[in-house]
């Protein structure tokens, strides 16, 4: 039954997180030093507080000690967090989604070894290292054609007695600088597998990505050099890696857009020019209306993508079209929100570009969502393939 009403739990999550953002995030995030482009590191104290409210383990199933939130609820929470601080939202979003995927995939023994530490330690964030340098995921020139040939993993895990010896390098690893536990993808004699590597493992090095930062939160390159990992750290085969494709990065984008828009509305009601508050001028009013429309459309598509992740049956029964909903939501939202944020910043005049004030940060943050990871061009090619009913075979997909 079609309904856009939120559940009581979702309302409660939203209210709780909104209060948390007001009380604990904003005082840090709206500080002039933090607004400056020069400091984009996620504030650890805020992350710890968020963990204590349960946001680090939000998506972890209840039976494993988490809040068991579905993809939609994760998006609602992430939007609220990102309206306060995109970096905080990104770190928590990644950890929460990975917690769901990784702990569900673990063997009981592995869970026993890793879950208590995760639950107890407010600083325990997770990271997935599965992208190797040079592994180009873009369709690009191969649009609507089979990818020429499968690319083998460079990273290797070789068994030596009671250990794995892992060597490899992975780039663009989310949460790299903060994670206490990594899952890394490497090649073994019997195919690719994920290995759990704790922070501090021998031979592990993490390097943050260089400026300008095309990500929110933390990201970097992870290398393992002759790292010896206990035999039991190999995750069981077929482990789903990403948390059911929770589209939380889209919700980060939405939170950024909302923060900019709400700031602009507030300012437009206060700032008097031409003898009246500028919101009373058609030019400003129309600009804000456009921003409101874009944000609502973005939210509608993002929540739709979240729902499609939560409920694949809605695609199966044709309630939703069989299209890549997350890609469509991302392509739409990234452009729509960037425009909404730019329009919001414009309402502030020169203040919109000053580095000790929030608007330039929102513009920067929205630009990251739009142009990071190669922009929307490739998403559109993936959508186009779906529109053209061009289906990549599993081996083609594996080859990517």
């Amino acid at each position, binding site marked *: 039954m079609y309904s856009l009403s939120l559940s009581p739990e979702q309302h409660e999550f939203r209210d709780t997180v909104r209060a948390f953002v007001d009380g604990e995030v904003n005082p840090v995030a709206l500080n002039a030093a933090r607004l400056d482009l*020069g400091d984009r590191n996620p504030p650890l104290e805020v992350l710890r507080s968020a963990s204590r409210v349960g946001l680090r383990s939000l998506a972890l199933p209840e039976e494993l000690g988490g809040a068991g939130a579905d993809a939609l609820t994760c998006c609602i929470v992430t939007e609220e967090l990102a309206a306060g601080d995109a970096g905080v939202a990104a770190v928590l979003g990644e950890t929460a989604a990975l917690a769901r995927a990784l702990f569900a995939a673990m063997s009981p023994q592995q869970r026993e070894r890793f879950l208590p530490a995760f639950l107890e330690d407010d600083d325990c964030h997770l990271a997935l290292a599965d992208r190797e340098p040079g592994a180009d995921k873009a369709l690009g020139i191969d649009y609507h054609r089979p990818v*020429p040939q499968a690319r083998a993993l460079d990273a290797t895990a070789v068994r030596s007695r009671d250990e794995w010896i892992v060597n490899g390098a992975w780039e663009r690893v989310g949460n790299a600088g903060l994670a206490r536990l990594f899952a890394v993808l490497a090649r073994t004699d019997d195919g690719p597998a994920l290995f759990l590597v704790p922070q501090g493992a021998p031979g592990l090095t993490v390097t943050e990505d260089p400026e300008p930062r095309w990500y929110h939160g933390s990201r970097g390159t992870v290398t393992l050099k002759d790292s010896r990992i206990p035999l039991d750290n190999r995750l069981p085969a077929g482990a789903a890696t990403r948390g059911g494709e929770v589209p939380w990065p889209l919700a980060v984008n939405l939170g950024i857009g909302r923060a900019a828009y709400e700031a602009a509305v507030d300012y437009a009601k206060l700032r008097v020019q*031409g003898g009246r508050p500028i919101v009373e001028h058609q030019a400003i009013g129309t600009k804000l209306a456009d921003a409101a429309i874009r944000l609502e459309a973005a939210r509608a598509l993002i929540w739709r993508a979240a729902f499609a992740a939560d409920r694949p049956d809605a695609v199966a029964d044709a309630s939703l079209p069989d299209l890549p909903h997350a890609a469509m939501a991302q392509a739409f939202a990234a452009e729509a929100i960037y425009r909404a944020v*730019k329009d919001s910043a*414009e309402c502030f005049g020169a203040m919109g570009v*000053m580095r000790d004030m929030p608007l330039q940060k929102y513009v920067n943050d929205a630009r990251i969502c739009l*142009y990071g*990871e190669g922009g*929307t*061009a490739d998403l559109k090619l993936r959508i186009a393939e779906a529109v053209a009913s061009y289906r990549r075979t599993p081996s083609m997909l594996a080859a990517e």
Partner: protein
Amino acid sequence: MDFALSNEQRSWQMTARKFAEEEIKPISLALDEAPDAHGTFDWDIVEKGSKLGLRTLAVPKEFGGEGTDYVTQAIVMAELARGDSAISKTFSQNWKWSHLIAQACNAEQKERFLRPFVADHRFLLGKGITEPSAGSDNRMPPKDDPKAGLKLRAERRGDEWILNGEKCFIANAPVGKLFFIDARTDPNAPLRQGTTMFLVPYDTPGFRIGKVFNKSGWRFYRNGEMIFENARVPHANVVGHVNNSDMKTEAAGDRTGGDIFGDLELAANALGVCDDACEAAMKYARTAKQGGRPLFDQQAVQLKINRMNMLTEALRSLVMRIAWEHDRKIHSANAGLAMNFSTDVIQEVTELNLEIHGGAEGMAGRHAEKLTRDAFIWSHLAGDSVQRLKVAGRLARMAAH
């Protein structure tokens, strides 16, 4: 109809291009990435450019300047901006106020201020209009609120005027040696009838620079607060007449100098940035590879490059036309339209360039990112609603005639 440049114009173009390539471009990115607002400036580049005549390009020859026409100025701005938009603006800002001195100052003032300006390679000019609560009200004073607009007070005491108040977001404030300051000399009159313009040297007693702003783009181009606490300005520094600051009224005659120059300035500067972006995008698309083939082989990339060049050539054509109109003293709304257009164009072109560079590392990616930050500055200077409404008003007045 002739779009060719004269030999003199071409010579200035080559001078500016060489300076931009050899001197500006090598330092641009590092200055842009300086951690604080103070590290973004560089006096050496100002001096070097000044020695080539780029600081005094618009000063009449009889005062020792270069006395170039507007077409030359447009070309030079674009060429410098191709190296760095904010450095270009730091030079052209002086031309803007050179035009004002030439047009609005009396002979004694010209002697007293233009001579030292020309002589000193570190002498920069500025003008203070905006105040914390008076931005667009200065540009479009509301008819139904005569008290709207700037508040900085100047009161006459003998041969001096005593200034009290604040200016905000003033370009070149932290580095300028001489400023035009608009002050309210009749607080009961509407803006245009109650304001006087003063020449205020940087070392005027009671005058100081407050906060220096740290901007997200155009970082080289300094910007700060001005604070006047019983600042004493001699009566001889009044520009024009008391209670008649506005050089933009029709009575001021030549409408193509002074502030109207500002429209051309932003449009021509944007053109240079677009040229830089187009060049960078084509270079990257032809060299970077994806799936083993140059990016340019992809239609999606070709369409972006087409659009970047299309918008840039449209802007170039319009910029050159308005520069020519300025030289011919032709009155039209075109300069304002060009300024508005330059906002849309510089932002879309730099954003497309960034998109083509998606994921590019190192210099290429950082440069593409910088251009979008510089381009965003246009939003509040050239393309905001007030700037567009002002031009629409001019169009309507022309249609009524």
